[in-house]
């Protein structure tokens, strides 16, 4: 991942609101053409980081670069190459859908009219409707049209589908894949923060896990799913009597035992097999399960880790 020029480059970013730290020394690198996800619990620093990228907040310390440019210095040059869909998009209440689109387009050097028509039809949005009469899902769809028609090189999505119904969520992701990714011949970049990890799973090819305003883990999605394994075993006697390799914590329920392993599970499997299990199986972990394992606070002895 040592791209000479990542699309997003963040080094030692700090930001505090009224003395309370939101981001504390964050590093992040997003390569061109990928879909990079930010995972983290509420308050981990995801939104603050994104707002610093978008120049909505100014970093108090550290360095932020988009396409190698400082968004605070080259604001116009950066903004014409990016688009943003927030959690709750805001529009001017006196405008209609069509007026809102014209307004958004007026800030953009390029605007794909064909895409605008396609997406309005796909979402069955009526341009004559007032934005105040739109549902939350329709507001997000309008924001997505505003973000995709300028054909940006980087699309920043902050919890874009939270609070939407499943059909709108699915359509949103399909639109990002089809209408956005297809246009760029493989070099369009997405940065997304979401709690709906399983819905974005297929789209994500790299993720960074944030905790307390810092990155604690950055991994490729395939690499992560290859690395984390869940081993389950059942014995004739209580599982709590089973000896495990040093450093591994198992969750024991009756005669069953469950261990999450990182990397090579063969040593554990050999050791478990010697103790004659009645059943022994290994399973991979989805990104959501990996997030739960990696973001969990240090577990006490005997707990799932």
């Amino acid at each position, binding site marked *: 991942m040592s791209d000479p020029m990542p699309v997003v480059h963040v080094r030692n970013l700090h930001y505090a609101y009224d003395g309370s730290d939101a981001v504390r020394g964050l590093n992040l690198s997003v390569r061109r053409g990928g879909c990079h996800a930010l995972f983290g619990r509420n308050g981990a620093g995801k939104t603050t980081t994104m707002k610093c990228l978008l120049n909505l907040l100014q970093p108090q310390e550290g360095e932020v670069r988009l396409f190698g440019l400082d968004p605070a210095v080259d604001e116009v040059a950066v903004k014409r190459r990016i688009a943003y869909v927030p959690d709750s998009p805001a529009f001017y209440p006196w405008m209609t859908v069509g007026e809102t689109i014209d307004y958004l387009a007026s800030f953009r050097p390029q605007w794909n009219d064909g895409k605008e028509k396609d997406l309005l039809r796909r979402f069955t949005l009526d341009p004559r409707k007032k934005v105040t009469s739109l549902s939350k899902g329709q507001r997000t769809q309008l924001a997505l049209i505003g973000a995709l028609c300028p054909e940006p090189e980087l699309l920043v999505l902050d919890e874009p589908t939270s609070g939407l119904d499943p059909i709108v969520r699915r359509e949103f992701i*399909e639109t990002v*894949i*089809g209408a956005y990714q*297809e246009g760029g011949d493989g070099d369009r970049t997405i940065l997304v923060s979401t709690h709906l990890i399983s*819905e974005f799973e297929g*789209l*994500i*090819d790299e993720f960074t896990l944030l905790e307390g305003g810092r990155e604690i883990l950055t991994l490729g999605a395939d690499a992560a*799913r*290859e690395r984390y394994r869940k081993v389950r075993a059942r014995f004739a006697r209580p599982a709590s009597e089973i000896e495990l390799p040093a450093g591994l914590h198992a969750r024991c329920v009756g005669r069953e035992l469950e261990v999450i392993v990182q990397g090579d599970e063969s040593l554990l499997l050999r050791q478990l097999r010697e103790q004659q299990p009645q059943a022994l199986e290994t399973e991979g972990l989805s990104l959501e399960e990996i997030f739960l394992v990696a973001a969990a606070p240090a577990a006490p002895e005997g707990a799932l880790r």
Partner: protein
Amino acid sequence: MTVNVSGAETQPAMLIELNYKSGKPVYLQLVDQVKAAVASGALAAGDPLPSIRPLAERLRVNRNTVAKAYEELESQGIIESLPGKGSFVRQPKSPLRKEIRHELLAREIDQSVVAAHHLQVSREDFLELVRERYEQFEQRRDSAQSIQKETR
């Protein structure tokens, strides 16, 4: 997730199922399932594959994942991409010598032998199982071919 995949309405369908808990890279799951569909006759030589965009949308996977799978299938000689027309299943024709093809297959078999050992499956049962699976594939291929003949 299961998605019915076919390049055109009249073509035989192929099911793609992605499993994010298999520990296997997503593009390789796509590669292996297209190869399995060709081996079982669900996809025949000359059949079109869906283009990248609709397949990525339907599977809800990154467009680049599908593109990577198609590149891999093309480099393995399973499909060919015709500019402006799309991707099609090729006539099976390996450019490799027989010894090399055997060697490549032997590596795959070794993995199954190792798995058989750990699952405590005996040599006889293992060989019987291989025969059964092979015959099942042949049957599926035959029935796919006869259905195709009837519909043409």
